[in-house]
């Protein structure tokens, strides 16, 4: 046994590297990496492959840093919700102050790294995204307004714009469309979850839409956002960002999203607060429509961006027939 010569006692189980990795929210990080990569590849011009990989890595680190800072700030409410109670801080595997230091350090490193590999604009955008997620969303909106994830959704929607900025040094209309797709996708995605995990959010005191405005109002708003989303995902076809593969994928998945949202609208999902301890995908009979929409929404975002990745990342020839068609119009 080692003698470390200090008097600070361990109050919790000693932290492992895996606990710090859990702070980075790896699943959210993978989505950020994916959408940022699509933004970078879909942008006009070319990126040096090595600098591109390093830039995506820097964006991933920045997303992880934001996740760590979010877990530091939200440790109290995470402990109250079944979905988040096993995170490192509420599960007493890490001190909150360690998560804060880790998050701040990674924020600095990621922004500096992106400044070196891409541009000051892209780095500034990443810094703003971390600030927006931690300060505007986590500290400001999340506990105060049912519009928390509507406005806060911007933080999750910025990564493809950052990827775009890595490739071009700025942003344009197509970058804004990618941003708008994620921004409009966020409310129906989280509200579908909140409909059948309503009591979980209520226990933690988070004013999610179903908790504040009720299930019926939430179902209506989900459907309205689904309509706006279905329109927005079609825009890349008209701006030339999306080709024939994208057009087919966007039409089918957009219609599916609308259909599932309509089923939520015509269901009684969320009317019964439900069991806070239930598994993420475990659901009562009346809430199945909401669970189905939540599950499909994850697939939806993936296939929409995957279609762009196929067209821009694996050869422009995939889009060629449609580009000819668009040129003929």
């Amino acid at each position: 046994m080692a003698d470390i010569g200090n008097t600070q006692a361990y109050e919790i189980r000693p932290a492992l590297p895996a606990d710090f990795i859990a702070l980075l929210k790896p699943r959210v990080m993978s989505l950020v990496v994916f959408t940022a990569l699509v933004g970078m590849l879909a942008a006009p011009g070319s990126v040096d492959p090595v600098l591109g990989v390093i830039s995506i890595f820097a964006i991933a680190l920045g997303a992880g840093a934001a996740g760590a800072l979010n877990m530091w700030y939200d440790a109290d409410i995470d402990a109250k919700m079944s979905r988040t109670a096993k995170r490192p801080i509420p599960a007493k595997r890490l001190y909150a102050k360690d998560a804060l230091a880790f998050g701040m350090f990674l924020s600095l490193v990621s922004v500096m790294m992106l400044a070196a590999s891409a541009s000051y604009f892209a780095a500034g955008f990443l810094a703003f995204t971390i600030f927006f997620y931690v300060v505007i969303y986590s500290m400001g909106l999340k506990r105060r307004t049912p519009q928390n994830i509507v406005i806060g959704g911007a933080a999750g929607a910025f990564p493809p714009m950052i990827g775009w900025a890595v490739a071009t040094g700025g942003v344009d209309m197509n970058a804004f469309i990618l941003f708008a797709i994620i921004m409009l996708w966020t409310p129906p995605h989280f509200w579908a979850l909140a409909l059948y995990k309503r009591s979980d959010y209520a226990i933690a005191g988070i004013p999610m839409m179903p908790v504040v405005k009720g299930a019926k109002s939430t179902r209506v708003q989900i459907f309205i956002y689904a309509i706006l989303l279905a329109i927005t995902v079609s825009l890349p076809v008209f701006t030339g960002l999306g080709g024939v593969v994208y057009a087919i994928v966007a039409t089918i998945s957009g219609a599916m999203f609308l259909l599932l949202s309509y089923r939520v609208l015509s269901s009684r999902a969320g009317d019964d607060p439900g069991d806070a301890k239930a598994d993420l995908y475990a659901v009562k009979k009346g809430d199945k429509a909401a669970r189905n929409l939540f599950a499909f929404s994850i697939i939806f975002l993936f296939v929409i961006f995957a279609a762009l990745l196929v067209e821009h990342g694996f050869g422009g020839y995939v889009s060629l027939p449609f580009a000819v068609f668009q040129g003929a119009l």
Partner: protein
Amino acid sequence: MSEGIRLTKEQEKARNLRSWAIAFGLFAFVAIVFTVTVYRKMQELGIDAVS
């Protein structure tokens, strides 16, 4: 004899793992900064990095 905390086996193992993770992170950071610097310089000098 100093008065300190004696680490348990579990604590000692966790500390070693953390030390390795920090060492790896520092090495990766230095490697990335070096790579970026070299690539940037090559771009400035008009040297094609891929060929």
